[in-house]
C-alpha cells in the first residue's frame, strides 16, 4: 500500500508539527498530545485488523491492557526496569495472548468473530479484576518508568516528559512505517485480498487462516506497544483498561478516523481526545453530546474524517480513480 502524494506531504507536515509542539504548546496540551499519539498507535493496530484484514475485533483492549500489566508487574516499587527487556517481554506477552485467542477466533467470521473476541477479552478482563495480588479492580501503580541505559550511561531519561514525548512520537512514526511496509509486502497483499474476497484468495491457494492469524498476532503486539507506552505515561494500570467499553471506543476511533488508511485512526484519536477534552469543560453531561456525535458519524461519515478530507482534496470525480491508493473498500457483508 502506498499513500498518495498529498497525503504523504500532509503526514510529513503533521510529524514536523508534532516535533515542534513541545516547544510551543503548554504542558497540559503536550501531555494531551502524548495521549493522542499512544491512542493513535492503538487505533492503528486495530485498523490493521478491521481496515485491512476485514476482522472486526471487539476485544482489542485486552492486548493493550495485558502488556501494560506485564510492565507494571515486573517493575519493583524501588526502581525502573530496563526497557531493553521489559518492552519485548510486554509485547511478546500480548503477542502470545493474541496467538492463543486468534487461533480460536480467526476460524469464525462476521458476528461470531466479533463475539468470540469479546468473550476472550472479557476472560482476560475478569482475570485481572479478580487478581487480588495485582490490585483487583483498583489496579496497580507503576512507580518508575522504564530505563534506557547501556552500562552506566543513560541513553534516554523517560522520566523527563519531553524525552518521553519524543520517544512516543518515534514509536508512532516507526509503527506507521512498519505497518505500511508490511502491507506493501506480499503478506499485506494477501490479507487485503482476504478482506476483499476470502474464498477467492483461498481458491488461489493461500492458507487464509494463517494469514489472518498472523495479522491478528501482529495487531495484538502493536496494541501491546501502545499499552506499554500508556502505562509508562500514566503510571497506573487497572482492569478498566481491558473492559469491552474500551474495545468499543477504539473501534469508534478507527471508524471516526477512516478505515483502511493507517493514518486515519491517528486522526480519529486526535479528534476523539480533543472532543472529549473540550466537551467535558462545558457540561458534565458531555456523554450525551458524544452519543449524538457518534450516531451522526455512523449515519453520515462511514468513511470517517479521512473520507471527508479525501472529498475535499480530490472532489468527487477524481477521488474514484485514487480510491485504490487509500485502501478504501466497502465493508459490506
Amino acid at each position: 500500500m502506498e499513500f498518495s502524494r498529498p497525503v504523504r506531504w500532509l503526514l510529513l507536515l503533521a510529524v514536523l508539527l508534532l516535533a515542534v509542539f513541545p516547544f510551543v504548546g503548554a504542558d497540559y496540551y503536550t501531555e494531551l498530545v502524548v495521549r493522542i499519539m499512544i491512542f493513535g498507535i492503538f487505533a492503528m493496530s486495530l485498523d490493521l485488523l478491521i481496515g485491512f484484514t476485514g476482522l472486526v475485533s471487539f476485544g482489542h483492549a485486552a492486548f493493550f491492557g495485558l502488556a501494560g500489566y506485564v510492565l507494571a508487574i515486573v517493575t519493583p516499587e524501588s526502581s525502573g526496569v530496563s526497557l531493553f527487556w521489559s518492552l519485548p517481554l510486554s509485547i511478546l506477552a500480548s503477542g502470545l495472548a493474541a496467538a492463543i485467542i486468534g487461533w480460536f477466533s480467526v476460524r469464525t467470521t462476521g458476528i461470531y468473530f466479533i463475539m468470540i473476541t469479546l468473550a476472550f477479552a472479557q476472560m482476560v478482563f475478569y482475570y485481572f479484576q479478580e487478581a487480588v495480588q495485582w490490585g483487583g479492580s483498583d489496579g496497580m501503580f507503576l512507580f518508575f518508568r522504564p530505563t534506557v541505559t547501556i552500562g552506566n550511561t543513560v541513553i534516554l531519561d523517560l522520566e523527563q516528559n519531553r524525552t518521553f514525548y519524543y520517544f512516543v512520537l518515534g514509536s508512532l512514526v516507526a509503527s506507521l512505517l512498519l505497518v505500511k511496509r508490511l502491507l506493501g509486502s506480499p503478506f499485506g497483499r494477501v490479507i487485503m485480498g482476504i478482506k476483499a474476497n476470502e474464498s477467492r484468495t483461498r481458491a488461489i491457494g493461500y492458507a487464509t487462516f494463517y494469514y489472518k492469524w498472523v495479522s491478528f498476532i501482529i495487531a495484538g503486539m502493536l496494541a501491546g506497544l501502545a499499552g506499554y507506552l500508556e502505562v509508562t505515561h500514566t503510571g497506573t494500570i487497572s482492569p478498566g483498561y481491558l473492559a469491552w467499553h474500551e474495545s468499543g471506543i477504539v473501534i469508534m476511533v478507527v471508524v471516526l478516523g477512516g478505515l483502511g488508511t493507517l493514518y486515519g485512526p491517528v486522526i480519529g484519536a486526535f479528534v476523539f481526545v480533543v472532543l472529549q477534552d473540550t466537551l467535558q469543560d462545558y457540561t458534565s453531561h458531555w456523554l450525551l453530546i458524544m452519543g449524538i456525535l457518534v450516531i451522526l458519524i455512523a449515519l453520515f461519515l462511514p468513511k470517517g474524517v479521512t473520507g471527508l478530507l479525501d472529498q475535499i482534496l480530490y472532489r468527487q470525480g477524481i477521488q474514484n480513480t485514487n480510491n485504490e491508493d487509500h485502501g478504501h473498500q466497502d465493508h459490506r457483508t
Partner: protein
Amino acid sequence: MTTIFDGDRRHFLTLAGATAAAGFIPTRFAIAGNAPVKIGILLPYSGTYAMLGESITNAFKMRIDEAGGKLGGRSVEYVAIDSEMSVPKAGQNVNKLISKQKADFILGPVHSGIAAVMAKIIGKKGSPIMIDPNAGSNAVTGALCAPNIFRTSFSNWQTAVMAGPAMYDAGHRTIITISWKYGAGIQMMQAGRESFEKAGGKSVKDILNPFPSVEFQAHLSTIADMKPDAVFAFFSGGGAIKFLKDYEAAGLKAKIPLYGTGFLTEGVEKPAGSAAEGVQTTLHYVRDLPNETNKRFIANYEKQFGAGKSNVFAVQGYDAASLLLQGMAAVDGDVGAQGKIISAMGSAVIDSPRGKFTFSKSHNPVQNIYLREVRNGKQVTLKTLAKGLEDPAVGCKA
C-alpha cells in the same frame, strides 16, 4: 546504574509544577486577590453512583453558600468533571483539573481506585490540596498519605471494625461475611472479621461476589445451608437494595440476623422497604443524631433538594466545605500559603452533623462510630460503639 531515579522526578511533577510555581510566589495573591477560588471536583455524575456525586456536590456548595458564598473572603468557582467511575480516566481527569483548569483545591472522589490514582498524583510537593469526601480506601490516609491530602469521610477500617464486638455482644458466635470483591468490600470484611474473631467469635466463610454482579441467590443457599449465627455484609446502592430484598425473600432475615457496614442500608431505607427493617449497621453517622448541626443540616438540605434526600454522603461533602472554610479563613484566602492552610486544616475542629470531630496525623477523621438500626424506614441510633476512633494509618510515613 546512575542515579536518575530521583523520587521527585516523576512525570506528573512538571505538570503540577506550573501550578506550584505560581502558587508559591507571594505576588500571585496580590495580583489574583480578587479572582475566585477555583474548586476542581472529580465525582461520578453518571452511572450507578451518580447519586453519591450529586449529594456530595450539593452539600458542599450549600455549606459554602451558608458561609456567604466566599472562601477566605474570595468568591468561589467550581469546575466539575464526571469521573464516570473510570479508573483509567482518573489520571487525565486530575491532571486536567490541576494543569488546565488550575484548580486551587480538588474535591473527590467516590471510588477507591480513583482515590488511589488521585492520591498518587496529588501527594507530591507543590500540588493543590485534595479533600476526599467519600472513598474509604485505607491507603489514602495510609500508604499514600501526604500533607496535602485530607479526608472528611471514613476509612474502610473505621466503618467495620466495631461491628465484630457488636455482633459478639449480641450473642453471635459464628458469622459469614459477604461483599463485592473489590477494594472497599475486601477491606471492610477484613476489619469486621478480625474484630469479630478477636472478640472470641469465629468467621466460618467469606463470600466475595464479583463486582458489580448482583446475583446473590447461590450465595444465599450457601448461607442457608451453613446456618451461621449472623451474616456481615457490605454492598451499596442498587446492589444493597437487591441484596436486602433477596435476603428477606429467601426467608433468611427472620432466622439469621443481618449486619453490615452502614452503606448496606444508608440511603436505601425507602426502596428496600421491609427488607431493611431491623438490619443493624455500623457507621460514623446516623440521621437521628440529636446535635443541633445535624438538625439544621437536614432541614436546610432537604429544603433545597427534597425531603428524605439527605444522607451520609451529603454530610461528608458538607464537612469537606467546612474544612476548607477553616483553612482559607486562616490565610485570608491566600491559596499560595499552602503550608499555613494545611496546618489550619490539620488542627481544625469540624462542627459536623455527625458530631464534632478532628483529624488524625494522617488527616483522616477521628470520629465516633455508631450502631444503627432501620426502624419504620428510618435510621435509629442504638448506641455509640466507639468515641473518637482513630484509623491506625498503616504505612503512612508522611
